[in-house]
């Protein structure tokens, strides 16, 4: 007897290996992926009761291959594809791995698999869904729950992705050397999006959502092990570890959002922080530089401050300047404005913000006003800060962020000497008096 979670853990580890083994031999990726999912399902139902077979990987490959043969056979009945089946059956007889082969293959296919799932021909939502299923070994239902969409919607994204791969004749192989850096950027972005979806979750089926963050870390760790010299992979892993270390501190017991500066740092996961700090220090020491590494370095500076007031803001300003130079983004500039305010005072930060007022990319976003509110608050200008918090609150599209911004505005007191009755009425009905 093996417990359900143990089985699930094992299956998710083996999923990409089994799929890689199949996809390497047969050019029908979509059919291979279906066959592997069926094998995983069979194992998930049978192993907890019957026990894990002695050679689980071999078992899964054998079952998946039988399913694949059945599938192609059915298709043959429809399309008369004798040749494919003959070839499959021959390979089934000759290449089922013996028990001694039941260890991770020397050549790990996980990376090839990730490159395929994150092929630029697929939309980001499809890349995410396919990567979680093919590499993460999650079921469609689990992915749908985690992303709060109906299972049919998620199933459609996965089948669309596989169709695109098939129609585009995209094969299961490592991208050519010259394109690998570009393709790796897409892979890392997909992993980053998966992590964020989980980390930023504050409600919904909490477990499944936060599991996404763990899953992203697990896959990124796998990639890091395969390409340890890639600084951006190490940087992303460090960034995830350092961010995730704050998870327990980022919500109050009532579920409301707690920002970095106000978090109880005693709740931070010190082991994860040590891990992340060591990883990013070692990567930067090699002279490597990239957006994820710099963001990890910034997260490390925060993580190393025992109290918010111990934060080395000068270092953070310098890191943001570097980051903006290699990866310009208005969000990085906003973050730098906060850091600048911490070093040189709120006025300097507000001046930097003033240069961004015409930026179209921020026009509808609440973040610019939220940062302005924070700096005005620092400067002691309560009415202006309150106004900016309210503006930011109205623009926010996230419930916890809206609540947070409203609570900041409320903390700054009520606006002017308006009569109590007018203030408590809904805004639309509050007529000016007197």
């Amino acid at each position, binding site marked *: 007897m093996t417990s359900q979670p143990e089985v699930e853990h094992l299956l998710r580890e083996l999923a990409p290996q089994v799929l890689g083994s199949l996809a390497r031999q047969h050019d029908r990726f979509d059919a291979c992926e279906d066959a592997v999912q069926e094998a995983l399902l069979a194992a998930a139902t049978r192993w907890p009761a019957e026990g894990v077979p002695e050679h689980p990987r071999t078992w899964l490959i054998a079952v998946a291959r039988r399913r694949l043969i059945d599938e192609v056979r059915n298709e043959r009945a429809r399309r008369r594809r004798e040749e494919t089946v003959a070839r499959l059956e021959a390979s089934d007889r000759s290449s089922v791995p013996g028990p001694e082969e039941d260890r991770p293959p020397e050549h790990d296919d996980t990376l090839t698999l990730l490159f395929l799932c994150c092929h630029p021909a697929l939309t980001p*939502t499809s890349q995410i869904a396919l990567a979680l299923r093919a590499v993460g070994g999650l079921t469609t239902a689990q992915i749908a729950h985690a992303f709060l*969409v109906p299972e049919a*919607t998620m199933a459609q994204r996965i089948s*669309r992705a596989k169709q695109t791969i098939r129609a585009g004749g995209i094969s299961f192989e490592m991208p050519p050397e010259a394109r690998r850096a570009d393709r790796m950027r897409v892979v890392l972005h997909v992993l980053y999006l998966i992590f964020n979806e989980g980390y930023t*979750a504050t409600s919904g089926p909490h477990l499944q959502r936060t599991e996404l963050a763990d899953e992203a870390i697990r896959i990124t760790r796998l990639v890091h092990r395969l390409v340890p010299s890639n600084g951006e992979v190490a940087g992303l892993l460090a960034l995830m570890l350092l961010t995730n270390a704050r998870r327990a501190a980022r919500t109050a017991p009532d579920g409301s*959002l707690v920002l970095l500066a106000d978090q109880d740092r005693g709740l931070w996961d010190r082991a994860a922080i040590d891990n992340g700090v060591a990883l990013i220090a070692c990567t930067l020491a090699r002279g490597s530089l990239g957006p994820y590494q710099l963001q990890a370095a910034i997260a490390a500076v925060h993580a190393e401050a025992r109290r918010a007031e111990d934060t080395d803001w000068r270092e953070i300003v310098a890191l943001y300047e570097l980051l903006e130079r290699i990866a310009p983004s208005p969000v990085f500039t906003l973050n730098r404005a906060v850091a600048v305010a911490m070093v040189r005072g709120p006025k300097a930060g507000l001046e930097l913000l003033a240069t961004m007022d015409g930026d179209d990319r921020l026009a509808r976003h609440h973040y610019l006003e939220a940062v302005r509110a924070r700096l005005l608050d620092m400067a002691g200008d309560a009415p202006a800060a309150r106004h900016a918090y309210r503006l930011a609150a109205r623009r926010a*599209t*996230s*419930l916890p962020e809206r609540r947070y911004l409203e609570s900041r505005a409320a903390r700054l007191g009520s606006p002017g000497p308006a009569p109590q009755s007018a203030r408590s009425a809904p805004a639309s009905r509050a007529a000016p008096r007197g």
Partner: protein
Amino acid sequence: MKYLLMIYDNPETRELFFSNEGKSLMAEMEALMNELRESGELVSTEALADPPNTRTVRAQNGVPVVTDGPLAEAKEHFGGYLVVDCESIERATEIAVRWPSARFCPLEVRPIMDTGATDG
């Protein structure tokens, strides 16, 4: 990110879409819905019955007041909706522009509040 596409109608567009002449518009609508289903962007969609089938509910001083209607025909009314989960508000807008009724009555594209939040 999820968006609600609010579809507005008026009495004439309603008649047009449900009439024989409206068949090609309906087919166009079906095709677009299928396209969104296949792309994995469609979360849900419903059409609403006409406004006279409505009940309006208010609680006045703790007393519920339920009335039928609005029975009078308004110039435009909320006629149905789509929930899509897509990359950006630009993409959601593109879908709204292609919705056949946009040629007669407006659609509104509203972001749905999500529950994710960053602490940084």
